């Protein structure tokens, strides 16, 4: 019955997330505005370029990529660093450490509820809207199951990176600075703000050896081109798998080694 205790946390998370209906509304408005800005910006960019294909991507390719990257970002952003940092500062982390569940797992599963709500409330509607509006630019075939697996691996890598950065907070007790650095690096190097196809050459190849592109670029490439080019999709996913293992091992080992460091204010 070990899975049951995790699912209880998921359920609690769903209920908690549904409490804040107003924040959902604000978030949806924010996303719409962002998408509007992106749409017009790239439209102007492609209109000025004079050619239809830049860096191997057409306007609709770029737009689908960026829209889904945003949807994926909303779905995967877990604010783990904030949570760990706040728990360290307030001392609440001591109570969490005493729970009969490993902290790393506890934190993940207490967030899993918002995965579920975000998936149904933001990712799925966006995905359906995009696939209807683009008249089948997204093919429905073997790429869909591959995409699901790829997203799960991306979540794992993203969470591990968050957890490693959160562990650094144990030493620095600085949250804002650490978190903003992580966010900036991940968003830029994962291809979430600008598709990796547009990066100039030495940078582009270098990025394929970093873990970040496995978070956004890999699942989106698998979704968009996985149907026609299974071989390179599988290669991307193999790369993801390697990073899942590496990042998980680092985050677990680093956390274990750092636990001895904790000095918490008595409370």
């Amino acid at each position: 019955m070990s899975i049951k205790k995790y699912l209880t946390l998921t359920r609690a998370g769903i209920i908690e997330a549904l409490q804040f209906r107003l924040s959902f509304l604000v978030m949806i408005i924010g996303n719409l505005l962002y998408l509007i800005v992106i749409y017009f910006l790239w439209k102007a960019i492609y209109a000025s370029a004079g050619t239809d294909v830049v860096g191997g991507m057409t306007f609709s390719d770029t737009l689908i990529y960026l829209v889904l990257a945003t949807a994926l970002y909303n779905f995967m952003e877990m604010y783990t660093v904030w949570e760990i940092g706040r728990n360290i500062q307030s001392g609440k982390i001591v109570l969490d450490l005493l729970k009969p569940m490993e902290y790393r797992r506890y934190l993940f599963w207490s967030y899993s509820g918002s995965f579920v709500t975000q998936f149904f409330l933001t990712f799925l509607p966006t995905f359906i809207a995009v696939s209807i509006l683009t008249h089948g630019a997204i093919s429905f075939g073997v790429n869909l199951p591959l995409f699901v697996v790829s997203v799960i691996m991306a979540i794992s890598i993203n969470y591990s990176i968050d957890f490693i950065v959160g562990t650094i907070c144990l030493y620095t007790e600085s949250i804002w600075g650490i978190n903003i650095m992580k966010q900036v690096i991940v968003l830029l190097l994962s291809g979430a703000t600008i598709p990796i196809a547009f990066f100039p050459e030495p940078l582009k190849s270098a990025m394929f050896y970093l873990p970040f592109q496995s978070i956004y670029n890999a699942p989106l490439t698998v979704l968009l081109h996985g149907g026609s080019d299974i071989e390179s999709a599988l290669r991307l996913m193999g790369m993801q798998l390697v990073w899942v293992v590496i990042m998980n091992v680092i985050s677990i080992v680093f956390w274990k080694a750092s636990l001895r460091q904790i000095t918490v204010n008595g409370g």
Partner: protein
Amino acid sequence: MKKKGIGFYLRIYGKILAQDLKSKMSYRADFIISTIGMIFTNISGFVSFWILFKNFSSINGWSYYEMLFLYGFSLVSITPVQCLFDNNWSLRIYVYSGDFIKYCFRPINLFFYFQSEVFDIKGLGQLAFGIGTIVYSWSRIGLAVTPLAIIKLVVFLITASLIMIALQNAAAATCFWIQNSFYVLDLAFKFKDYARYPITIFSPVFRFIFTFVIPIAFIAYYPSLVILRPDAVPILSWLSPVIGVMFFYISYKIWMYGAMKYSGTGS
């Protein structure tokens, strides 16, 4: 009681500022890391900008250096909100916990006292970055450097900064009604990223919205036209100082209205 003059407020501001800096300095590591984080943010913004222009030489008739000027202009004009009005982010916490009541009992302007309590030094790095960008693009475009142009630049930068301050004030003030204003603030904070593109890329409907409803076009686009296109300055550019002051005044009134309505938590 006679009305207190601007000299009085400046003196008080200096005193409160000194206390705030002293308390910041006692968390030196956090300060250094946050500053590095801020530099990272600016560098990454610049890198995305540069990557875009590696692929596309101009956007909607705007050259690389003109866009760079716009970018630098927006960086400088959002510095005041970053440095001087950072306490807005904590407003919801004070209101929620009831600590806000302490501001209501001082014999000075409530809004002034609340905002003066925090000065965010991190913003100064951004200011330096922005000024550097403006100077560099200015010289590359080959615009004449005259005293009049510099006065114009300073005046329009200051009045442009009022727009972002107004948006943040109004967003923070929503917490007097809806308690958790974080999402609204976060949404308003993201507007600064949209301000760095020429408004002409949008369709007429959104041009109208971004000019009169959410006035982000006045953060950088309209005021910078005064410098960039001195031969054809639209009337809205000349009006932008007036609009800045007007929006600031409205947001101040909203903020104060909310604060006056505040009844404490009873503890």
